[in-house]
């Protein structure tokens, strides 16, 4: 059993689907931040069988967690302060996602216009469908 120490302030992102932690690491921009991060892959889980966990030591207002819901809304977000869990956050699908996923429609203006942000809006909350703001093409999992 691998042991990773407690963090004083930050987040523990639990119940990440096994294998997805690196993608979350990138989407949260953790590679650009100067903070301590523990990536635990394929940890044993009663609920999921296997899961990933991310522990991030940083001020709690530093991360934009909206994007987590888009990637996997089953992730448990534990907010840590003074070494204790002070809050468990529910994830809500963001209304808009900017520069996280790219529109793959070859007819979309984003395919040629430089500097244009890739913006997707939540078109159907129940089906979790996002569409490109410019061409309305649906974002599909296969494109990832």
């Amino acid at each position: 059993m691998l042991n990773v120490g407690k963090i004083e302030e930050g987040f523990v992102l639990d119940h990440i689907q096994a294998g997805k932690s690196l993608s979350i690491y990138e989407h949260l921009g953790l590679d650009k931040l100067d903070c301590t991060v523990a990536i635990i892959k394929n940890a044993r889980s009663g609920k999921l069988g296997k899961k990933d966990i991310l522990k991030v030591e940083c001020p709690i207002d530093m991360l934009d967690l909206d994007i987590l819901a888009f990637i996997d809304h089953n992730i448990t977000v534990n907010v840590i302060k003074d070494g204790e869990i002070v809050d468990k956050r529910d994830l809500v699908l963001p209304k808009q996602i900017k520069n996280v996923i790219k529109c793959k429609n070859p007819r979309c203006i984003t395919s040629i216009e430089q500097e244009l942000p890739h913006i997707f809006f939540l078109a159907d909350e129940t089906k979790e469908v996002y569409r490109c703001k410019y061409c309305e093409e649906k974002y599909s999992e296969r494109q990832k």
Partner: protein
Amino acid sequence: MRHLLSPMDFTTEELDKLFDLANDIENNPAKYAHACDGRILATCFYEPSTRTRLSFESAMLRLGGQVLGFSDAGSSSASKGESVSDTIKVISGYADICAMRHPKEGAPMVAAEKSDIPVINAGDGGHQHPTQTLTDLLTIRSLTGTIGNFTIGLCGDLKFGRTVHSLIHALERYEGINFIFISPQELRVPDYITEELKANNIPYEEVTNLETVMPQLDFLYMTRVQRERFFNEEDYIRLKDFYILDTAKMELAKPEMLVLHPLPRVNEISVEVDKDPRAAYFKQAKYGVYVRMALILTLLELV
């Protein structure tokens, strides 16, 4: 400042006002002959479209305004690699209003975000063609007195046909519309449209055979299969003549059914159908000028 990027940018009440204005222009052209004196319309057409461009130019000229622009990307700065954002910033200094057609979907939205003048989407790829939709709605309203409580068959290329996408979108807001989508399997209406219809409990059917549904229709909206929307020439050849409306098929239709078509047509409507009083597509082209005149006046806040 307002733009027209999608037919949904105007409420149905605003559309009614626009159509009232278009009908007034039709009946009293002299009243509007100098309404746009000293104003300039820029027609930025990144792909060729004689008809839509001429319709816009005719609209502005009939209002007493002037036009400038380009009619394909090769003769514009786009061929030198200029972005849509930069082009519109420059055009904003040259003209008072801009009509933009672009092969890339969403290009007019990008232009509108950066523009100092109203932008009209004159067609963006296979996405939207709102002024054609306004033309279609005005035609329906002018020829039947109202918009609502009818069955409309949309036939041909429903996948890439932006006129169809825009029209469905716009008709969703009116009462009692029943859609019948007639297309080959490969050219079916995109899923985002059918999802939207389902979500709003709007009845629709998807069929491949035109003859069987002809007797049900109050309007038949024919479309052309466009070569430029295909990456594969073989698919285009195979699908281009899938539907041909002729007098035999017209005999199956209701006596008051109207045939609409955004034009230009190729083979999908036989020339012999033109003589049928139910063929409304040339009248429709004329309504296109009136509705664009009304739109220019509205966006320039001259009414």
